């Protein structure tokens, strides 16, 4: 899976947690979960767990704390997928 494919997959993970569908549809690696997508921080753990389930990976706390925008989330997902293979 390349970065673009993961970004597309991430869009589906984020969809239930944002009301800002226009920003979601034009998501890029710089899109900030809280500032741009207006996701409430109380949903950040849900997003991590949903990403873990979607990609069958485990995101440890040190990796989770690096996630703040779409790009950093793609980084972590790719790292964890590579560790699996």
């Amino acid at each position, binding site marked *: 899976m390349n970065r673009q494919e993961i970004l597309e997959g991430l869009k589906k993970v984020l969809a239930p947690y944002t009301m800002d569908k226009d920003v979601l549809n034009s998501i890029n690696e710089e899109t900030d979960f809280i500032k741009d997508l207006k996701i*409430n921080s109380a949903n950040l753990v849900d997003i991590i767990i949903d990403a873990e389930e979607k990609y069958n990976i485990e995101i440890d*706390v040190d990796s989770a704390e*690096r996630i703040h925008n779409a790009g950093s989330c793609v980084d972590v997902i790719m790292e964890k997928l590579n560790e699996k293979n």
Partner: protein
Amino acid sequence: MISIGNDIIALERTNAARSKQEKFYSKILCRQENALFKNINSDILSIENFVWLAWSVKESVYKFYTRTNQQALFSPTKIVIQKIKAPLQQEILEFDNAQLERNSFNNETCFCCEIQFASDIFYTRTLVFDDIIFSVANNTNCFENIYWGIKNIDDDSYEAQSAAVREFTLKGLNKFLLSEELTIEKSLFGYPFISKQNQIPLSFTHHGNYVAYSFKQNGK
């Protein structure tokens, strides 16, 4: 450090069944915090509400800390609740008003926590209502000069929450502290402040149909 931090959780917007699963709470609580729950009467605080109390405490402390340490990352398991004291009054509070405002916390009705983050110690007060959890963080264990308010709103869109919290805060500031005309601005780092009043730190929070503010007089 002149700062303040707060956080509100609208319990209706949380997934209670998921919150009590280990895969969820292990991303919020560290091992030593699991033990704290055992000393609390579960009639006044269920496991899922304990998880959200911990979240709101940690988020409040993080907001307090990042006002002067903007690079700090939010990693809930690294903000550690060392002690928790349950309210003397062993009952769940009901949020039955459209809004509630106070100029301190009553230890008989709130949870008091002591928290370690980085090399600092912080203190919080948390009110657990039937449908919301609200925490405020400070760097001393004195909350007598801390003003706060919680308001129920109809429109839960981000824009409505954002407008409502500003309007509610300005009314609170005028009611408790200052009668002059004030404006609220946002710093480059995302925290709100009162223009020309940088000795009065301010914090906002919103979730679902609730907005809340807290501010500290004279920044003491």
